[in-house]
């Protein structure tokens, strides 16, 4: 093979720690600046929401409420982080609610059967990764539409959950488990997952290649990117994130519910990245935007609650927000006709 470089090659950077540090700090600043520039509209929207709700209700600006908002946002964030990557590849995963329920139920059942906490929790995570990998595989190798493939998985996993649980929740979980996923741990997991993913997306080749798949799969293939393996990995990661979200839900209820993740939780995980400026067409991974999307959704939910808006109207609102966000996405990112 020929030498890899003909042109360029200005003196190699030495990769010592001391020289790297300023570079790392500088790149962090640049990233933050870019995130700010891309998401100032979202920050503004959030500020306006907070302003409106604090005017509408005197109880809104209160540490308890704010803590609740942050916890709810973090819970959504766990799944939305994974979803951001799935959407970046141009795909979608509608099975996460069911994956969340099944893995939590399996882990809880194992614990109740006397399995130590760590292996039981790991088994659930493994199951989630497996479900995701399965999704990714049939999408990649059988060329199925992501939506319909994960829809089948939704039904399978939900059914499996009902069968295992017999329809009733699994109670009395070990303290060691619940305390590891409760309260402030939700925020730790949510933010930790987000930061880790940001590092991977910005500091490794995976980031470029994942977005590349969503942008133009064919070009990536020609450039030697292992498209299928990468996509399977992304869906597996989404599976793991769904399980983690499930564990936090289980811990907060102190029980694994067979109906967990059935209502709008997973839809919010889908809506948050799109609100955050990611596009269904793929090719973009704005994780900071996703975080803002989660905060906006959680603020709306708490705000509407406190303002006395019934749950049913909230559901209408969230349905409307999803459609609105996607409409905006389609109208602004409509691919130019030929």
């Amino acid at each position, binding site marked *: 093979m020929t030498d890899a470089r003909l042109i360029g090659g*200005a003196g190699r950077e030495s990769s010592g720690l001391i020289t790297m540090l300023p570079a790392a700090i500088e790149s962090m600043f640049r990233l933050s600046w870019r995130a700010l520039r891309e998401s100032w509209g979202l920050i503004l929207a959030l500020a306006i929401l907070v302003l409106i709700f604090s005017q509408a209700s005197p109880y809104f600006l209160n540490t308890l409420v704010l803590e609740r908002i942050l916890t709810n946002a973090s819970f959504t964030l766990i799944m939305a982080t994974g979803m951001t990557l799935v959407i970046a590849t141009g795909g979608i995963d509608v099975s996460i609610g069911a994956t969340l329920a099944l893995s939590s139920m399996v882990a809880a059942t194992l614990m109740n059967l006397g399995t130590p906490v760590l292996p039981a929790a790991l088994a659930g995570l493994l199951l989630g990764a497996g479900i995701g990998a399965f999704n990714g595989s049939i999408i990649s190798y059988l060329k199925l539409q992501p939506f319909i493939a994960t829809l089948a998985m939704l039904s399978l996993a939900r059914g499996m959950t009902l069968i295992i649980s017999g329809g009733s929740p699994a109670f009395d979980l070990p303290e060691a488990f619940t305390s590891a996923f409760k309260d402030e741990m939700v925020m730790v997991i949510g933010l930790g997952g987000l930061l880790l993913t940001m590092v991977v997306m910005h500091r490794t080749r995976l980031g470029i290649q994942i977005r590349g798949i969503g942008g133009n799969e064919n070009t990536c293939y020609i450039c030697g990117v292992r498209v299928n393996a990468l996509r399977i990995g992304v869906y597996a990661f989404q599976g793991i994130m769904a399980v983690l979200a499930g564990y936090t839900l289980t811990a907060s209820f102190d029980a694994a519910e067979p109906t967990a993740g059935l209502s709008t939780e997973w839809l919010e995980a889908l809506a948050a990245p799109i609100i955050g400026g990611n596009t269904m067409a793929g090719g973009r991974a704005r994780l900071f935007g996703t975080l803002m999307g989660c905060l906006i959704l959680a603020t709306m939910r708490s705000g509407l609650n406190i303002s006395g808006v019934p749950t049913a109207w909230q559901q209408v609102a969230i349905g409307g927000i999803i459609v609105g966000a996607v409409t905006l996405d389609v109208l602004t990112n409509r691919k130019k006709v030929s």
Partner: protein
Amino acid sequence: MKNILTASKICKQYAGTRALNEVDFEIGEGEILGLIGENGAGKSTLMRILCGIEQPTSGDIVMHGKPVEFSGPQAAQAEGIAMIPQEVLLVDELTVVENIFLGHEESGAFGLSKRQMLADTRAILAELDSQQVDPEHLTGNLPKGSQQMVAIARRVMQGGDVFVMDEPTASLTGEETQSLFKLLKKLKGEGKASVFISHRLEEMLEICDRIVVLRDGEHVGNFINDDTLTKDKLVAAMVGSAVANEFARTVSHIGELMLETDKVVISTFQGRKTHPISIQAHAGEVVGITGLAGVGKTELAHVLSGLRPVVEGELRLRGRPITLRSPVDALKNKIGLVSEDRRAEGLVLELTALANMTLTSLKKLSRLGRIEKDRERQLGLLMKDKLNMRTEYLGRDANHLSGGNQQKVVIIRQLCSEAEVLLLDEPTKGIDIGAKAEVYRLIGDLVAEQKAAILFSSEPQEVLGVCDKLYVLTSHGFLGPYAKGALDYAGLMALEFGTATSDTPMEAAE
């Protein structure tokens, strides 16, 4: 000079036709080789074989002194062949630097070496005089020319011994082209070879050390580029003694003026505006629009069928101004398009041939929304008789028809819907000789029924043989009309390649 690559007796046989016949071809170290020939001369096939995209039927390739067989593009790449295809393959959603390093990203101990990649990208863009391109910009937002420069930069960055470029200058500005040439010279200085395909002969003369001419799949000329080489010599070599095929067709009565464009300006896919185009198509007339690739033929067909907007100027049908907002308007005005890409635009592959034929004439074949299948079938049988198509094909899915039969089905659709102006965009692309003759006969029958046909084609022999009147789209102007017989093959080539100016335009066609 040492040869990097030697190809000998390369043959490529497609079903029925021979694309390449015992072509010998060699490239030396540090050589810039031009490859020219008319459409269908075999240059693209030869390039695809060199790059491993297609395999020769017979013949040998020797590289760096050892025989090689390219089973696929990767194999060719591994031997040092670097291909820059005509179609720019970039990920629009990634930045310039990400595109340049896609699949070859550089990592250090702390993840991606972004600064290094950025510096390298800047360096290579500077080589191409494209400093104005921000490496952190999304490529999708760049102008077409800059995108092409990025694609070239990526290929050069990944290295190689032989750079194969298919029409790299098609979407470049004059300055960008000069920058590319500077790079080619630099590569030459490093002993790398380049193969360069272009329709622009003046560019060829400027940059190439040697120019190889292909005609009808054969190697017909090998010119060392010295001061004595001229465009005329090259055109003469491309044309040879070939004469236009005469397709037997009785010239029909020229009727009223149907479709007319009055100084219409359109934008091409590359985003350039064309010269004002004025054409007139009468009933009973086959009008040809020809020109080299990328001059805007397909775009003009799209404008006339409502798929693209008119930038400036006016369209008139029977003297009355019309606006075509979408193909629905075109159908209403009885203008029908036979698209260049049958499979992507022309056919519903899941439907039967018959259903595809009647797609736009269902209204008259149905009562209260119910398709009267007997009448549909009768129409199909009637149409089938106009062609040499077997009855059983009518019920067959379009997907399972040959290319020729698929093309007939699409043209028949226009007959069924009683289109009065037919726009035929490269109607004989990829179909065999027999089917071609059928298509020409069909066009003849159409105009005999006092319809107007506009044939958009880049095959000189086709337009010279079939058309009653010819217009030539070139990058330096819109030429014509030329009456049948006013141009011969060499004359047309001279116009297309810009070695002659329009000197024999036909009298106004009234």
